[in-house]
């Protein structure tokens, strides 16, 4: 049974017709074509589907879309103003914190949330926060450097 669901995504209200079982991942990809949100595992274990929910990283594959009505949802499509990149995105480019890039949107959002919660995390604190995002290309050293760079950019 399809129902009308109002979602607030990247600062806009979106009216979608969704089935009860539709996850936030399905809503964002299949209905809003936000392709940066990707399925890597479907069970909340890899972080490639990370979005920000009221500023905090969550796995979109593991949340029913109907449960997040009215809450602020952010994907990387909603980052950066007027076509400019967000400082975290700049830091990822500068530090080469990506290879295939499949995990990158999830990492960028998680790092953004991290720095908002804790503007100068230690390496260990950053690693703790990023543990749920997996990168099989193994860009972790570069990603940690990107955290440092983004943190300095903010200072």
């Amino acid at each position, binding site marked *: 049974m399809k129902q009308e669901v109002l979602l607030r995504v990247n600062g806009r209200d979106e009216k979608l017709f969704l089935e009860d079982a539709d996850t936030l991942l399905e809503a964002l990809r299949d209905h809003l074509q*936000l392709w940066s949100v990707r*399925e*890597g595992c479907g*069970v909340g274990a890899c972080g490639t589907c990370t979005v920000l929910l009221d500023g905090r990283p969550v796995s979109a594959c593991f949340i029913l879309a109907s449960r997040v009505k009215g809450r602020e949802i952010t*994907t990387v499509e909603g980052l950066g103003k007027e076509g400019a990149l967000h400082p975290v995105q700049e830091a990822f480019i500068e530090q*080469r914190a*990506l290879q*295939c890039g*499949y995990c990158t949107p999830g990492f960028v959002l998680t790092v953004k949330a991290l720095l908002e919660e804790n503007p100068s995390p230690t390496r260990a604190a950053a*690693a703790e926060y990023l543990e749920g995002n997996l990168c099989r290309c193994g860009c972790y050293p570069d990603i940690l450097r990107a955290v440092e760079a983004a943190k300095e950019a903010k200072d």
Partner: protein
Amino acid sequence: MSKTKIVGQSVHRKDAARKVTGRILHVGNIEMPGLLQVAVLRSPYPHARIIGIQKSRAEAMEGVVLVLTGAEIAAMPDVDPYFGPAFKDQPILAIDRVLHVGDPVVAVVAVDRRRAEDALELIEVDYEPLPVVLDVLEAAKSGSPLVHQEFKPAGVFADLDHMEAGEKSNVCYHFKLRTGDVEAAFREADRIFEDTFTSPPAQHMPMEPHVTLVYLDEDEKVNVWTATQSPSFVRTQLSTTLGLPMNRIRVRVPYLGGGYGAKLYGKLEPLVALLALETRRPVRYALSREEEFQTITKHGAVARLKTAVKDGVITGRRCEVFFDTGAYADIGPRIVHKSGYTSAGPYRIPNVRIDSFCVYTNKPPAGAFRGFGVPQVIWAYESQMDIISRELDIDPVQFRMHHALEEGEPFATGTPVHSFGLKESLEQAAEAIEWSGPRPQNNATKVRGKGIASGVKAVLTPSISGAVVMMNSDGSVNVLSSTVEMGQGSDTVLAQIAAEELGVCFDQVHLVQPDTDVTPYDTITAGSRSTYHMGNAVRMASMKIKAQLFGVAARALEANLEDLVARDGRIFVSGSQESGMSMRDVFLAKFGSLGTTIIGEAIFEPRAIPTDPETGRSEKCTEYWFPSASAAEVEVDLETGQVKVVKFLSVGDTGTAINPRHCHQQLLGAAITQLGMTLFEEMVFEEGQLLNGSLLDYQIPSVKDLPEHFESILVEVPHETGPFGAKGVGETGTLTVSPAIANAIEDATGVRIRDLPITPEKILRGLAEKDPKPGRAEVPQ
């Protein structure tokens, strides 16, 4: 060689901005009106006969467009129901038997994924279970249950033309190498070492699972968008499968969310192409992570080594390696061949006997994985190198240095080695870990140790790369190549090579993504071959353009060809850049109009001399070697068995680094994956059922698994025929990780682990066996 301007610079990736914004194209983002989705019913048995399939209820379900079985495919005229790169042994859907848990049996096409999945519940399949063989050593014995009654060579690749048809055995390929007289070496030895080392099956785990989309265009041409590392092969495969000419099939590949060998050869493409042809609608099949585990794996392997030593020197080595290729051979035979001939190590050993076997079992198929079987054999020979040197009380680094092959010496195959920075890599690794420095400090419950390992892999030879380079009248360049950008940075490296050769700036070079209607044949994007092979093709094609540009410029400038230089988008007489011509001027002089193009094309196809089927010998078995060394310092908790990698160094001989920063990234990225394979990754089976087939149960390294100190070192021994001296680097970082860690663990604890992964339980068991103390807690077996 004159100094290069762009080659050797760590320029930024071409695709970085598209990747941080999530805009990069993947097969999963392609939209198409009326696109249908697929779900597949898979076998619950490791081996069974299919008695019957009832699918009418599924067919009647609303939203379901097609339900297809293997028997129906087998009855289609012109369709070849079997595929595979080495042997045609894999049915598109199971026909009469299923050979592993997860073998595809029935495909449902529906308007959306949920509908397709729901329809699977309405299908009933009756099976009659058959005898199962799961252990690779059991499977290799005569008289064990047969996975295949017979096998037929696929006949596609030149390097596999020695595959023979066979029957009544699970061994589908046996590589032999015979050098000297190994039995005499054993008779005359003063010490003989015999050890067995095992590696488990594991998962590639690209974050993007396999995905394929097929549609027919208005001309009924079969258009395929697929996440593959081998677009040219996929086209050939589909041409055979569907009985269509190659130009009626168009395979395009956007960017891959990782590959690591998982996305090679035909995977989903034959099935999805048939479904699109049957429904006459666009069809996409995206694997779930759970299906990924059932689709392709890294080979589990058992390696037995017997080594003769006389007067502190290795005089003979016998290697028997059994690769578990699962229910379908996939590229297993090539892995057994290429890793097989390196399994005695990059050492001077006069008498060598190698037998390497590709063995069918009732497990999911195993295929190429970053390192191509070589990490499994290096795990064995580098663990044993330490066992021997410790036993003989010789420093392990010195022991390796003493045996390491040097420039021009013959490898075990008889092929002389060139551009072989093995000793340099070992030296660099030893220095970086402070090998001759003081022993690391221990405390009461935590002990530290250091370990080192070296090894080598040879590039797949022969193989072919074709490239077309097109320069436009504004000096901008399109490079047409079938190399797949899967994260390794090939777009960037190939653009650097073209820009360097053509004398234009890096930003002016654009890589056209693989498209079999447009980009020429390339064997595969794998095996650390693209920088060298496609790099050479792109460079040669660029040279042909340059020759034409110079011809025009020489006339216009009244200069000698030899005096001309192309740099910064201008052609000029060496030393007088100002007086030269822009590319635009050259095009105007040649064509009289703008918008024109000059094209250069080249095919690079290095040859090999096939290894002799009885002796494995060849004067040239490979085009180049890439040596690797790793050094580790570990801390082992004696109470919990936990291993912490405190320091890790990955060293690789990359030849001249085209993009040094990206070479470092390849070494470290590969090392992280292999750290996972060393310490915890393993697909665990019980009676053919996978017990940890999801990312909840199968762990891969996270950022928390990074060693505290984690660095890489490039040893740049230029290769004389590499583009600007470059070799490959994609796999180098995987090769020597596991034995370096195991050697460090023995250094710390005295416990020698021979079976990967090195879990805390195995270490505790080893500690208990070494030092059985009354009252020590029982260690679970």
